[in-house]
């Protein structure tokens, strides 16, 4: 609309925006291209090859780390999304005392630097005498996934007409039936996008996992970090590119789902 008027063209805006997009995508493109590089020297292009991907698929450590990542991401998503849905339902009702405190607590995992959360969780688990492993990682992930799952559900509930639930109650639906038959179907898109965010955030997390994982529960990002520290190799390129593509597919899927709804 405004763009048709020349007065709206601010000098330097278009080149800066172009630069920003190039800056954001250049590393991703380079990484994906180099992952198909036949050469052993990871940054020298000599020819196209799938070899490194085959090597990755054949690497037991990578497969084990992927399995751990998926177990934890699924577990944390289910826990965080159900907790967050319940909390969002309670928070959407009438105002009550302590609501501001709960809101602040929900913001905490988003606000506090990851390294602080990581240190605090590590010390806490060690003080409790818990062995570092899948359980500690699952707990830590559930904590920071809750706000990511909560926000879209809360936003969806905000736009909900409260008279729908009242109508259900008038028609003798109990609270549970009202939730299952009226509220849940209406907030389902919010619940789904909350679950997706939780899943992707859990799958991507490195810092907190690095601190609380211990030896037995290495996830894919923690394993990749170890590989990177040992050196730049074509295998790292391939596994990193795979990780990127999975995330991008996920975001695109959730965008597409959002488009279809509206």
């Amino acid at each position, binding site marked *: 609309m*405004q*763009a048709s008027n020349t007065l709206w*063209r*601010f000098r330097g*805006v278009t080149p*800066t*925006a172009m630069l*920003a997009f190039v*800056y*954001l995508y*250049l*590393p*991703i493109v*380079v*990484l994906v291209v*180099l992952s198909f590089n036949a050469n052993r020297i990871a*940054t020298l292009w000599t020819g196209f090859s799938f070899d490194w991907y085959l090597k990755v698929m054949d690497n037991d450590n990578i497969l084990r780390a992927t399995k751990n990542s998926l177990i934890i991401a699924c577990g944390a998503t289910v826990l965080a999304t*159900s*907790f967050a849905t*319940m*909390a969002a*339902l*309670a928070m959407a*009702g009438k105002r009550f005392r302590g609501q501001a405190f*709960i809101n602040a*607590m*929900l913001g*905490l*995992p988003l606000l*506090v*630097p*990851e*390294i*602080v959360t990581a*240190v*605090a*969780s590590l*010390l*806490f688990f060690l*003080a409790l005498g818990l062995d570092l492993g899948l359980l500690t990682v699952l707990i830590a992930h559930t*904590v920071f996934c*809750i706000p990511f799952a909560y926000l879209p559900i809360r936003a969806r509930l905000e736009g909900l007409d409260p008279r729908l639930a009242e109508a259900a109650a008038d028609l003798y639906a109990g*609270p549970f039936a009202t939730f299952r038959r009226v509220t849940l179907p209406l907030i389902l898109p919010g619940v789904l996008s909350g679950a997706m965010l939780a899943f*992707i955030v859990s799958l*991507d997390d*490195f*810092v907190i996992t690095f601190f609380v994982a211990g030896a037995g529960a290495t996830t894919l*990002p923690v394993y990749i*970090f170890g590989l*990177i*520290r040992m050196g*730049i190799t074509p295998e790292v*390129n391939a596994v*990193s590119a795979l*990780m*990127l593509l999975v*995330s*991008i597919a*996920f*975001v695109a899927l959730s965008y597409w789902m959002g488009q279809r709804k509206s």
Partner: protein
Amino acid sequence: MTLDPYRRTRRRLLLAPTTLTLLLFMVLPMLLMGWMSLLAPDTYGGVRWKEWSLDAYVQFLYERDLDDSLTLNSDYLQIFGRSFLLAGFATVVTLLIGFPTALYIALKEEKTRQRLILLISIPFWTNLLVRTYAWMLLLRNGGLIDSSLSALGLSQGTLDVLYTPTAVAIGFVYSFLPFMVLPIYTSLEKMDWRLVEAAFDLGANRWLALRRVILPLAMPGIVAGCLLVFIPAIGSYFIPELLGGGKSLMIGNLIQNQFGTARNWPFGAALSFMLLALVLLVMWIYTRRFQRPPGE
């Protein structure tokens, strides 16, 4: 709604899992961390539970000599200072790139805007560790940037930028750019553009309209963006670890070190606690200054 006598009980039950999880596994660990920062370290990691000590905080500023006297030691302060500088620099540069980008997107048609915002958000949701690694490929000697510069005859010798503070700054700007663009875009999108039209009608040129109308209205987004960049940047661990060398150690690396080779848990806890205090202070100032309740 008085028809429902179980309302309060139900609300408590609904809130219980989230509240308990966050209290037990987020709030309590932070308090424990504060407590442990006031204890004496055990020799091989861990703490002596019954031995109170302020050593962790003293150690931050002073060094204990052989004769037990304290001399001022600025090593750790320098690391904090460097973290501030790098995070501050990243915030300024992301703002300089992010604001025009957000403005560019906000001035497009509805459909294009949605696509461009998706393009900005995709990197935001992809693994940061892997994207940082991609910068190692780009920046290292013999990497894409180095070899293109030599091929064009623009540089003699090697680039030598990986493992320097410059590389860390590049990584920060790259990683946190979406955190700047998205909130600024949100505030620009909500803006009533007729105000800008009115400014033009009243004879303002573009620069004046930008400075006097658009910038003030975008201020909430700008401030939120600056916080969203500064806070993760100052606490960042693996970006300086991978892109910076020994000379760009930041708070995050120092903290990690206390649980790795240095084995000084109380000092690590004290450093984390100071970082936490710093972030909460910044947030407190922000809410006081920018989120006043209406009518105040």
